């Protein structure tokens, strides 16, 4: 583009061509849509900016259509300047957001930068080209020399860089207790608390009374540098969990105040004490709801308003990290915090003056101060004993879920121990039975699994010679029968000779159902019409196809090892398995997609391992290898420069705390892939290192009675959904047990 050849100079009154209106309309429409529809609240700077820009474009289009030759150059210039201004504003916000979050969450840089860059580029398409074209079209002689324009641009660039540096700096919290002093302060607290415990000569209160409470602690003064602040929770003489906020100018005075408070409110017994020493603060200023949602880190940060404070664990207990709802129409799509909710939880009228606090979290009992990170003790290096303990505890927890009824308690609220029962979830009941029969150490586990499977038979429906397990009178879903069949077949292998044939008729019927639900291509239909007995559906049922392959492999194994007249012919089962592994190993997921993404295919890896000795299919195994290679991208690795406590966890970004079940599911698939690779003579060193990190993460996330200070009794061995979501569900533990047990075998630690 020549610097000296403008198309039209400002002031020239050439009549504009009407065709140019299309250009402006093509910008006005998407910008108007963005202002009205994107998930930014109305009235936000983005909505106002995009709306204004759309309006300028629309006005210019109208002027061009009217051939208003005096007006068009001015409006063109307005379009160009408004576009550049808006793009500059968005750039500033995007870069400042990236800097802020990078400072808050370590290692987030590349992922966040990529996401924000995508948004930025899309907006750039609708602003920068039109601005350049229109500026060139209407360039005025008063625009100045090249040197002046370069100088102005350089000044702007310097100002932008300086302001962004300030933004990055302001993202950091203001330290209250210097890092070098923390260990000394904790030593003083421990010594004082131990002296207090010895002076009481009473027995320690059992740590089973949960310290759960969500009342904000009242501090004598707002938190500020130069004043040490300690949030403490303990059970008082009535056995009720209470919180206290203590402040002093020195660690010695702080310890004295803590002991005095304990002596006054817990005079009868020496309680377990949860301590949160405030180490840094950061004023929370609203910028944009999307960014605000991420400004408080789950299970790491607490929040204060004036003298009222909530400790990090209390925000988790209040479910404060699922409060930002970007889409009004989808109420369940929520993540992150909402300043309004935080203010409400603190009992203040407005979010003005909210302060994020960072704390050093510990749990005291006489003689010991246990550091806690995200509500649990720090992780330890993986070894056989740790794996053994974690596996046994998870198994015992599952057995406790089946005390009074064959149905496992579906979910638990950890603070009260209140359970959700009687929901009749076939897949989770069967999955739990499956893992108990696969990995259970003794006859108790197998008996529990068999009871669980017997309960499923009440949902069996005969469809001619087929049997289906279904909760729906008209439709039998593939997964509701496939996973139970896998569990029945596995448990049959562990049953005594007398009990082995108890459910053979059902196994045979379920096997025939899967054969009926298989298409000529080898794929499985997702459902079957109960009345007509015909399979139907064009989509793939998530998880269910892999479960069906696994079930057929296990049934064929049983049919070979301990035949039953009820089972389908072995030849028919073999043909179906070959057909299924061929389809799912090739046509199901085309090669171009494999480098981009996969869906949830863990069960296919488990099926590939089960089929290793009898139905190995190289394409099916490769599908599993490529799947775990893809999924491995979501596992946080040490190179990601994240908090070491998160390494091995599965998450789309370090902004969101890793979730335990996806982590465990990946661990299951990876353990299976390692076994298959080893059988093929392929290298597994990298996979094994990754699996170790996954198992270390899971073991650290497992709840233990001696450190889960908010937990009701009998939750030892369980798993929360994540550090930020303290819900316990039977399948969280089921998958974790499977990952730990099969992972231990794959690593030679079992």
């Amino acid at each position: 583009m020549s610097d000296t050849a403008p198309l039209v100079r400002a002031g020239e009154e050439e009549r504009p061509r009407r065709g140019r209106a299309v250009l402006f309309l093509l910008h006005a429409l998407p910008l108007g849509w963005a202002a009205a529809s994107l998930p930014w609240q109305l009235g936000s700077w983005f909505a106002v900016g995009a709306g204004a820009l759309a309006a300028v474009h629309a006005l210019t289009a109208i002027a061009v259509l009217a051939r208003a030759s005096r007006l068009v150059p001015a409006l063109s210039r307005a379009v160009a300047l408004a576009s550049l201004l808006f793009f500059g504003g968005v750039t500033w916000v995007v870069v400042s957001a990236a800097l802020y979050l990078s400072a808050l969450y370590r290692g987030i840089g590349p992922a966040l930068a990529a996401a924000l860059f995508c948004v930025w580029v899309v907006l750039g398409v609708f602003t920068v080209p039109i601005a350049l074209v229109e500026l060139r079209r209407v360039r005025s002689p008063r625009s100045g020399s090249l040197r002046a324009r370069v100088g102005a641009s350089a000044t702007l660039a310097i100002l932008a860089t300086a302001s962004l540096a300030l933004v990055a700096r302001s993202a950091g919290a203001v330290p209250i207790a210097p890092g070098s002093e923390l260990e000394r302060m904790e030593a003083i607290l421990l010594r004082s608390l131990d002296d207090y415990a010895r002076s009481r000569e009473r027995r320690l209160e059992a740590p089973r009374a949960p310290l759960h409470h969500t009342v904000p602690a009242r501090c004598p003064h707002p938190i500020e540098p130069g004043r040490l602040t300690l949030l403490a929770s303990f059970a008082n003489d009535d056995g009720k969990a209470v919180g206290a906020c203590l402040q002093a100018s020195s660690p010695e005075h702080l310890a004295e105040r803590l002991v005095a408070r304990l002596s006054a409110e817990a005079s009868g017994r020496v309680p377990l004490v949860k301590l949160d020493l405030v180490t840094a603060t950061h004023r929370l200023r609203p910028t944009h709801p999307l960014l605000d949602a991420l400004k408080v880190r789950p299970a790491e940060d607490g929040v204060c308003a004036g003298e009222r404070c909530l400790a990090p664990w209390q925000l988790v207990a209040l479910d404060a990290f699922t409060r930002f709802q970007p889409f009004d129409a989808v109420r369940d799509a929520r993540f992150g915090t909402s300043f309004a909710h935080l203010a409400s939880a603190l009992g203040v009228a407005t979010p003005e003056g909210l302060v994020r606090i960072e704390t050093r979290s510990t749990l005291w009992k006489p003689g010991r101060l246990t550091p806690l990170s995200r509500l649990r003790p720090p992780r330890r290096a993986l070894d056989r004993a740790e794996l053994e303990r974690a596996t046994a505890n998870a198994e015992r927890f599952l057995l406790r879920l089946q005390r009074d009824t064959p149905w496992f308690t579906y979910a638990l609220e950890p603070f009260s121990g209140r359970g959700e029962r009687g929901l009749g979830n076939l897949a989770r009941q069967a999955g739990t039975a499956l893992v108990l029969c696969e990995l259970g150490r003794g006859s108790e586990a197998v008996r529990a699994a068999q009871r669980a499977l017997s309960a499923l038979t009440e949902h069996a429906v005969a469809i001619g010679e087929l049997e289906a397990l279904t909760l729906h009178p008209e439709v039998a879903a593939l997964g509701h029968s496939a996973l139970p069949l896998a569990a029945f077949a596995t448990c049959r292998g562990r049953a005594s000779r007398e009990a082995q044939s108890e459910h053979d008729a059902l196994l045979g019927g379920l096997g025939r159902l899967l054969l009926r639900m298989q298409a000529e291509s080898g794929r499985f239909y997702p459902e079957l019409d109960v009345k007509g007995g015909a399979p139907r559906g064009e989509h793939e049922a998530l998880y269910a196809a892999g479960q069906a392959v696994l079930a057929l492999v296990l049934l064929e194994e049983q049919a070979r090892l301990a035949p039953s007249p009820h089972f389908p012919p072995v030849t028919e089962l073999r043909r179906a398995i070959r057909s299924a592994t061929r389809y799912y190993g090739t046509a199901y997921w085309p090669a171009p997609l494999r480098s981009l993404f996969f869906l949830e295919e863990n069960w296919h890896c488990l099926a590939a391992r089960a089929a290793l000795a009898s139905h190995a299919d190289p394409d099916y195994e490769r599908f599993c290898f490529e799947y775990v290679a893809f999924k491995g991208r979501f596992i946080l690795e040490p190179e990601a420069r994240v908090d070491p406590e998160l390494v091995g966890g599965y998450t789309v970004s370090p902004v969101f705390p890793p979730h335990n079940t996806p982590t465990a599911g990946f661990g299951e698939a990876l353990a299976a892939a390692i076994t298959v690779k080893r059988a093929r003579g392929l290298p597994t060193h990298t996979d094994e290192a990754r699996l170790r990190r996954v198992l270390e993460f899971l073991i650290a996330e497992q709840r233990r009675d001696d450190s889960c200070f908010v937990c009701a009794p009998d939750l030892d061995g369980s798993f929360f959904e994540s550090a930020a979501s303290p819900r316990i569900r039977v399948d969280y533990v089921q998958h974790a047990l499977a990952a730990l047990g099969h992972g231990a075998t794959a690593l030679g630690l079992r």
Partner: protein
Amino acid sequence: MARFAAYGIGMGLVALVALPAFDHPTEDSYPLSTYPMFARPRPRPRLFFAEGLDAEGTRHRLPPRLVATEEVMQAAATVRRAVQGGPAAMGRLCASIADRAAQSAEHASLIEIALVDARFDPVAYFTRGPEPVERRVVHQCAVGADAKSRPRRGRRGAP
């Protein structure tokens, strides 16, 4: 020649993208798609849910935890199974919801629980609001100590 090639490639790409539109909507493929999610008529799913009524007759959608569990899908399945299980199953579920409502300060205004069989238009749900296009109360029970349960045989009708 170059212009001819450019037109040829450009028009060819447009034709390729448009080609699936002339195929059967179910013949979806990668990378050229018939966009079956837009090509097919959208069904109106039948869903079951629980709602509470206050003294003024205002209906309130109940959160899943009041029905059975924290999980939306599991709560919906619980209501569906109770409705399909008949009056006794509906009675049990309705009574348990009424019990939980009676203990919830947030739901102190409710005097009655209803299990509803309804049909929704998914597009209208998001564009006009969450009201069903057809609804039928299949069971009702009172909240409180004198709770009584009764099945309903009401006709399906507009909300």
